[in-house]
């Protein structure tokens, strides 16, 4: 197993390298550059050229990439073109809010989806099954920006129950209760989508397992229905569920770009949009690198969890 993990990590290195090459060149293909975005429109061409030279933007793209890569190996992600702060510092400031928002949303989504999926499978074609399936389609198909604006209109603007956005009240104490009240609406939006997706996988995977002969065996042993469903059936239906969780984990980093924008949540999603509009190459590269690492890590974690959930799966 350890050997397998080491091998997977070694394979991940060239993959990451390829990801950075693609990202760097695609970002540079976009029209405009950081200098156009930050100087005042009346600047002379000489001033622009000087700025570009100062930032190294007058060099060929491959030279810029080489410079970025060598700095990366020294642990330096560079400076933001727009704010002149170190990129590492910016990332650290934005990653916390995103992890909080997405972590809570994933947990809430799963806590809703897994029991509902089991109930749907147990009571297939009942009214509760139809109701949950309807809810699931709603969660998958309604876009987050629309749902987000909808809940802001109803719960923040009309009912005044929750704040419209941001993570803490301006000038407030920034305490836990304040943060929680700011979390409710974006988490509701994100968890609806996550649960809507997950509930379908849990339902179909459980349905598949509930028809298996060994559950009849478990019943014949005289086990209670609760144990049959939650110990024998659920554990055997974990593989598809783990797959979906593995796909969901990268969302912890980059999943909420739209939702963060709608709720002005000071996380990585908001930072991404800001970096794109200001052509902040170094910050964008760092966000992309982080996302790529997360995806590769989540894939590895998924494969390890398969082996934990199913003894028939072995990696030698």
């Amino acid at each position, binding site marked *: 197993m350890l050997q397998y993990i080491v091998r997977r990590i070694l394979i991940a290195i060239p993959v990451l390298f390829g990801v950075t090459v693609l990202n760097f060149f695609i970002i540079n293909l976009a029209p405009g550059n950081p200098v156009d975005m930050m100087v005042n429109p009346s600047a002379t061409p000489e001033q622009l050229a000087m700025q570009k030279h100062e930032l190294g933007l007058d060099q060929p793209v491959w030279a810029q990439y080489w410079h970025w890569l060598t700095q990366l190996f020294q642990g330096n992600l560079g400076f933001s073109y727009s704010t002149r702060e170190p990129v590492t510092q910016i990332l650290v400031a934005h990653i916390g809010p995103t992890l909080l928002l997405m972590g809570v949303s994933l947990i809430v989504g799963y806590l809703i989806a897994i029991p509902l999926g089991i109930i749907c499978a147990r009571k297939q074609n009942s009214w509760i099954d139809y109701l949950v399936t309807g809810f699931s389609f709603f969660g998958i198909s309604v876009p987050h920006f629309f749902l987000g604006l909808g809940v802001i209109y109803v719960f923040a603007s009309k009912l005044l129950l929750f704040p419209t956005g941001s993570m803490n009240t301006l000038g407030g104490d920034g305490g836990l209760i304040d943060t929680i009240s700011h979390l409710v609406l974006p988490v509701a939006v994100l968890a609806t989508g996550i649960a809507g997706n997950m509930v379908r996988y849990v339902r179909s995977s459980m349905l598949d397992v509930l028809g298996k002969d060994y559950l009849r065996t478990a019943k014949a*042993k005289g086990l209670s229905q609760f144990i049959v469903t939650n110990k024998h059936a659920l554990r055997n239906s974990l593989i598809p569920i783990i797959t979906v969780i593995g796909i969901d984990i990268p969302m912890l980093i980059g999943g909420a770009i739209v939702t963060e924008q709608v709720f002005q949540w000071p996380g990585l999603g908001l930072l991404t949009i800001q970096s794109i509009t200001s052509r902040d190459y170094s910050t964008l590269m760092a966000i992309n690198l982080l996302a790529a690492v997360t995806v590769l890590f989540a894939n590895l974690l998924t494969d390890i969890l398969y082996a934990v959930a199913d003894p028939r799966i072995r990696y030698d």
Partner: protein
Amino acid sequence: MPVTEQRQPLLQVKNLKKYYPIRKGIISRTVGYVKAVDDVSFDIYPGETMGLVGESGCGKSTTGRSLVRLEDPTEGQVLFQGKNLANISQREMRKLRTDLQIIFQDPYSSLNPRKRIGDLLAEPLLAHKLATKKDADQKVNEILEIVGLPKQYKNRYPHQFSGGQRQRIGIARALMLRPKLIICDEPVSALDVSIQAQVLNLLKDLQKELNLTYVFIAHGLGAVKYISDRITVMYLGKVMELATTKEIFEHPKHPYTEILLNAYPIPNPHQRDREQIVVEGDVPSPANPPKGCVFHTRCPFAKDVCREKVPQLTGKDHLVACHFPLETVNV
């Protein structure tokens, strides 16, 4: 084991019916019923083996599963030691499962792939609180020895075993609770012929040692003949004939039994030219069974009365449901 009428039956099946609704349309209207088991009655005495034979889809497995309440019967009674299993609560039924066990047909799919054999076997004991973890482990060792598997195997998972070994595990599982009655639902039909004999011998030995009563369901007559004391022949959810194994094989009274026996190859070339009754057509749909005798559509001796009137199961020791039992035809 000889059957004597004086003994109390261990299990009595009275007019057992299992109908599955056929649903159609968006509001799932019930448009009819599949009559999987239709008015089946028989008694099972302690220590005997009752064979249950018939073609695929004749309701023998449904009958078997209804006996241990893995199916809820639509109508009728299953009396086990005076209790009607058909209408007791799930909780009461769970307790009775210590006495009533079942061995399943497919040893590949009937074992949970995520559980070690030792855990699988110990689970019923722990669920019924009949043993502590330590005792259960001891009992797992014992049972593995009884079914002829090394006790080190208990740390393995089901996929690490062959079909025959898995069926031994299935048998061990059924034996864990020391039941009185075991339903063997085609326990050998998924196995190689060479392994079949091993498993049948194991079942026979266990019956002697532990004084078990079996209901042995099969579609192959060979295994049934070898293991059964009495045989019930089923067709389309109904009992056609019920008698001792010897009677069924030597003096079959129902044309369907005769046809089944004919279909069973005899390993003797000198009997090559024995008289054959050939049956034509397929089994009718149990959703729309024929009127009168259910077998009349395929019976070579069918007369008008067979198409109109349902024959009753009659006789003292040798029961048959036919208007014209074979002896009268032959004479």
